[in-house]
């Protein structure tokens, strides 16, 4: 790797000049835990947006923070990245305290926001060059780094275009590229694929996987279980400012059954009858969906879908639709919290 292109200052051997106060090593970084937070609290007036969250992210893993809009995901991420003051609890990033050493934290993290944080008035190349300059790269090196990243993110053709004229997917890619100029070991991604089309979404997933292969630790927030499932090694489920569950994607999914059978009855009056039948087969009562006559039946084994359908047929309960799917975030939520992901109070 060409050291001219880096903004970070890798320790130049053990002989560290202690004379220059501004460049000496402040504290040893902890390379085991990328994030360790205990009892994080954030209040906005009356509203407690984050209400005592503990979080541990190991170096090298992808950690997913899953939750509906307004759950406090973004607020938590903004606290961890020094963008919001922490009201209670404490957080460390690679062993460095976030509240007391924000300047050091900013040298360790890359942040990609929910809304692309790039400058509308500048071109893609100018945006990256500017950030490179702000990070202390000489002009030429900043230009080279910008060109390199634009190439990696497939944005060469759009390099000289103003961001105003960019599509949503291109903005996100540029935003992520901007976060990588300093080659940060910890990358925060706030809903990296919300609002993207499936193809662009897949590309973003590939990029994130590539970052992890390169040694990055990634903390991402998402509203989609399948995204967390695809990318994350471990997931924390956040609801109304609290962590309600944590585990691997498989652990979370088995808590609600590996797959779910959705049934819509032709006659909604027979819902309870159908539910009783399903319960005798599976031993667990199914949950009723918000629509009348709808049942969502958690299946420990997908093959049991047939048993339920046959039983309904035998009892002459007619169905209008049936499908077997992975549980959605809604069901994970329902199983964990006992309520649907209704729209809670606005997140500031």
């Amino acid at each position, binding site marked *: 790797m060409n050291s001219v292109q880096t903004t970070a200052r890798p320790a130049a051997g053990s002989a560290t000049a202690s004379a220059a106060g501004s460049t000496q090593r*402040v504290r040893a970084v902890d390379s085991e835990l990328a994030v360790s937070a205990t009892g994080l609290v954030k209040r906005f007036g009356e509203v407690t947006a984050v209400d005592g969250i503990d979080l541990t992210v190991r170096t090298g893993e992808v950690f997913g923070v899953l939750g509906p809009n307004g759950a406090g995901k973004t607020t938590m991420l903004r606290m961890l990245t020094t963008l919001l003051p922490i009201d209670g609890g404490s957080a460390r990033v690679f062993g*460095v305290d976030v509240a007391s050493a924000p300047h050091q934290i900013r040298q360790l993290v890359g942040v990609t926001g929910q809304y692309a944080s790039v400058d509308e008035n500048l071109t893609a190349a100018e945006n990256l060059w500017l950030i490179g300059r702000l990070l202390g790269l000489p002009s030429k090196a900043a230009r080279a780094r910008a060109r390199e990243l634009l190439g990696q993110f497939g944005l060469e053709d759009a390099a000289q275009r103003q961001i105003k004229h960019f599509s949503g997917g291109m903005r996100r890619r540029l935003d992520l590229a901007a976060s990588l100029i300093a080659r940060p070991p910890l990358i925060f991604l706030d809903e990296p694929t919300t609002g993207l089309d499936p193809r662009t979404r897949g590309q973003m997933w590939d990029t994130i996987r590539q970052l992890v292969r390169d*040694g990055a630790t990634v903390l991402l927030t998402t509203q989609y279980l399948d995204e967390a499932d695809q990318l994350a090694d471990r997931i924390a489920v956040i609801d109304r400012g609290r962590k309600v569950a944590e585990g691997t994607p498989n652990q979370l999914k088995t808590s609600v059954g590996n797959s779910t059978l959705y049934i819509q009855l032709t006659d909604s009056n027979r819902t309870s009858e159908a539910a009783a039948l399903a319960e005798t087969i599976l031993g667990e009562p199914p949950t009723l969906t918000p629509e009348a006559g709808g049942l969502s039946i958690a299946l420990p084994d997908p093959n049991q879908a047939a048993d339920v359908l046959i039983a309904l047929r035998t009892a002459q309960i007619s169905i209008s639709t049936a499908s077997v799917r992975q549980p959605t975030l809604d069901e994970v939520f329902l199983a964990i919290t006992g309520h649907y992901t209704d729209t809670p109070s606005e997140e500031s």
Partner: protein
Amino acid sequence: MSTMIIPAAGRRLTPHTPLSETVSQTFSMAWRALKKMQRNPEQFFDVIIQPLLFTAMFTYIFGGAIAGNVQSYLPIIITGIMVQTSLTACMATGTQLREDMEKGVFDRFRSLPMARIAPLAGPMVADLLRFGIAATLTIVTGLIMGYRPGGGVAGVLAGWLLVVVAGWSLSWIFAWLGTLLRTAQAVQGVGMMVMFPLTFLSNAFVPLTTLPGWLQAFVKVNPVTLVIDAIRDLMNRGELTGKVGWAVLGCAVVVAIFAPLAVSSYSRKA
């Protein structure tokens, strides 16, 4: 793909931004502001239209009534309008900073290990261009209308420099308001409320002696009056008077108070 990541263990963290980097970051942010101006030239309207329009308008309307004729009013009005335009231009500094801070890109700047003063100071360095344009246009309009400054070339240049410095210093107040208030409209509103009386209750447009006694008392302590007097001393008489010294000192004090206030308010808001 080349290596995109440098592990945490291989990094040396710096506790703060060194001064040389702060300066370089400020210039990078100034570059960004200049690019923005270049791509949104309507930002120059106030500093182009106001000097041309107000100078011509005020001179022909008030010249005869206040100074007997246009020619003898010019030394009063040109210096007055230079300061007035400068004050209006620094209001725009605050509103534009406020608008800018709303944008996502400011989250990016906050998340970078850069000096907290750079995002504020950068645009203000670029604004020197706006102050320069305003002062130059006012002087040129005056010269065309027959203004013959007694201070000569040196006096005019010194006056130009003082008005640019004064406008720049005062814009720190508006930068602070920009970080403090919630909307650009609020910044504009507060700015008008402060700037309008300060400009008109000064000796910018009329000689002090024509005012009632109580008003004279206010006008005399109005800092705008001091700056105008200093500029008149330089441009019309070519004299480096004590008032010039006080005006420069005043500017320094304003920057010394409001620059730290603005930076701390900006860092707190985060």
